[in-house]
């Protein structure tokens, strides 16, 4: 259910405190120097694996690839049963059926992009139909895109109404709202879009589609983490953040966890509240995990390519 925003949406969003680009980058760079070693690294790698939304969003996706990924999502490291499963598998709507079958009984979530992903340039009715179809096919999580054109034009009401409508169409499925921060350009916009999505009922706010550069960055994620932290303080409702796109190494992933820990707090250090949307990242997490266990560096031949 959307909150009530006092006054006009525009004056509310523009009344949020500004974000200084240099300052936020400096803070993110400072946190990126955190040194995560030994036991902390082990915990971080497992946590990161649990937070992965294992993603394939290609035009060339096949049922076979989706089934392979589903198997990997359930049991990421065939050689090591102690490696935890990932949070969810993230696919295009036409692959939901295949994925649902492959994941049945695993506890791994099934996320589908919807609402005319990635550009979102379809009529609202189409977006809602897209959403309903995905949920009906078995998606437990919906990753929607906002209408960046409307947002950048200042038509905040349209963006807000679309999110509330999609949220209603989701039913019990969790709604992740993709801001596509690479197109919003400024951190002020990221903050405003975050609050807009949260008030409109988003369960998660998500950085990117992965189709636009830049995708997730540490400073953008930092601003979004501040938003969910402050939103909970203001309303009592906790929402999550998903950083997606461009996160390829375990080192990157751990930097995101540091950000979660120090900006939002330990309450968000759980796959219920933070996700990493990625594909190749998982193999590096696994490789680092093995290295930590065995003391030897691994090679890509020992992990499945997808």
């Amino acid at each position, binding site marked *: 259910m959307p909150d009530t925003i006092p006054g006009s949406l525009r004056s509310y969003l523009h009344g949020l405190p500004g974000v*200084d*680009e*240099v*300052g936020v*980058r400096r803070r993110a760079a400072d946190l990126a120097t955190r040194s995560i070693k030994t036991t902390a690294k082990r915990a971080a790698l497992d946590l990161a694996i649990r937070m992965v939304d294992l993603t394939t969003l290609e035009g060339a996706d096949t049922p076979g690839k989706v089934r392979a990924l589903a198997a990997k999502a359930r049991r990421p490291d065939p050689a090591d049963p102690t490696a935890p499963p990932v949070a969810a598998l993230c696919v295009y709507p036409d692959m939901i059926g295949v994925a649902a079958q492959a994941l049945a009984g695993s506890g791994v979530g099934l996320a589908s992009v919807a609402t005319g992903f990635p550009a979102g340039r379809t009529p609202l009715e189409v977006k809602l139909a897209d959403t309903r179809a995905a949920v009906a096919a078995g998606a437990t999580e919906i990753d929607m895109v906002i209408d960046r054109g409307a947002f950048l034009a200042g038509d905040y009401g349209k963006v807000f109404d679309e999110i509330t409508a999609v949220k209603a169409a989701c039913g019990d499925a969790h709604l992740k709202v993709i801001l596509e921060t690479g197109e919003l*350009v*400024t*951190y002020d916009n990221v903050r405003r879009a975050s609050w807009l999505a949260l008030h409109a009922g988003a369960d998660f706010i998500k950085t990117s589609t992965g189709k636009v550069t830049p995708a997730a960055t540490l400073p953008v994620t930092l601003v979004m983490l501040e938003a969910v932290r402050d939103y909970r303080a203001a309303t009592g409702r906790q929402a999550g953040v998903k950083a997606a796109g461009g996160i390829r190494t375990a080192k990157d992933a751990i930097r995101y966890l540091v950000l979660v820990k120090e900006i939002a707090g330990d309450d968000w250090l759980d796959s219920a509240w933070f996700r990493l949307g990625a594909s190749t990242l998982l193999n590096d997490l696994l490789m680092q995990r093995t290295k930590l266990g065995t003391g030897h560096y691994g090679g890509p031949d020992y992990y499945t390519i997808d």
Partner: protein
Amino acid sequence: MADIPPRIPPRIPPRIPVRRTYKLYVGGAFPRSESGRSYPVTSSAGVHLANAALASRKDVRDAVVAAREAFPGWSGRTAYNRGQILYRIAEMMEGRRAQFADEVAAAEGVSAGRAQAIVSAAVDRWVHYAGWADKFGQVLGGANPVSGPYFNLSQPEPTGVVGVFAPPGSPLLGLVSVLAPVITCGNTAVLVASERAPLPAVTLAEALATSDLPAGVANILTGRLAELAPPLAGHADVNALDLTGAGALAAELEALAATTLKRVLRPGQDDWADPDPGLSRIRPFVETKTVWHPIGR
């Protein structure tokens, strides 16, 4: 030819000239010393010229108060406006050439022609500094290329209230040469005039008073250096000292200045005839402020 009446001696005496009273210049007004004292001023040849006010410690205090009050307004003027006012001072001096020349000739014992030349140089000095008012900031400040996403700008700002000891041997040109740079850059001044030859300083004060210079920007005291210098140098609300005319007291005054870390311009080799003093007398009386600001979206 008509008869010419016999010439008879006039019954009425010739007109008695009105003499000037040489007073202090404090806060835009011309008070006598609060002490009620004065002292005789003689020419270089020892002829009595006039009595000048003999300022006291309390006059120093009053002058510092006036200078401090004037500081925000004067330093807040645009540089262009300060330049205009300095030029106006040159105009006002030019209009009193004869008076200045007479006083310089008497004080320095120089010929009328030489005195005229000194007055010309003093007038030109104001013109010189009038032009500096809106340029020294560009020469002494500027953007610094720091290695980061920051705009970084250094700008000189006036130090505040400056105590100035005018050179005793050059009562007009030396006086103008030390006062002008101090106020050009937005400071306000408490100036102790040449003890032996204070009259040009008082006449200058009269020119200042009619030249749009705000009250209190320049305050001019006449009297004994040894009496006025220590309270001025030790005053906590004075930010800097020009010790050019401090003579044998310079070291003692510099030590007094250390109590509140006043900026000090020590006595040096000054050539008042040099038509281009440049920034050498502005530099010591400005503070550089450097402002950083991020550059981002």
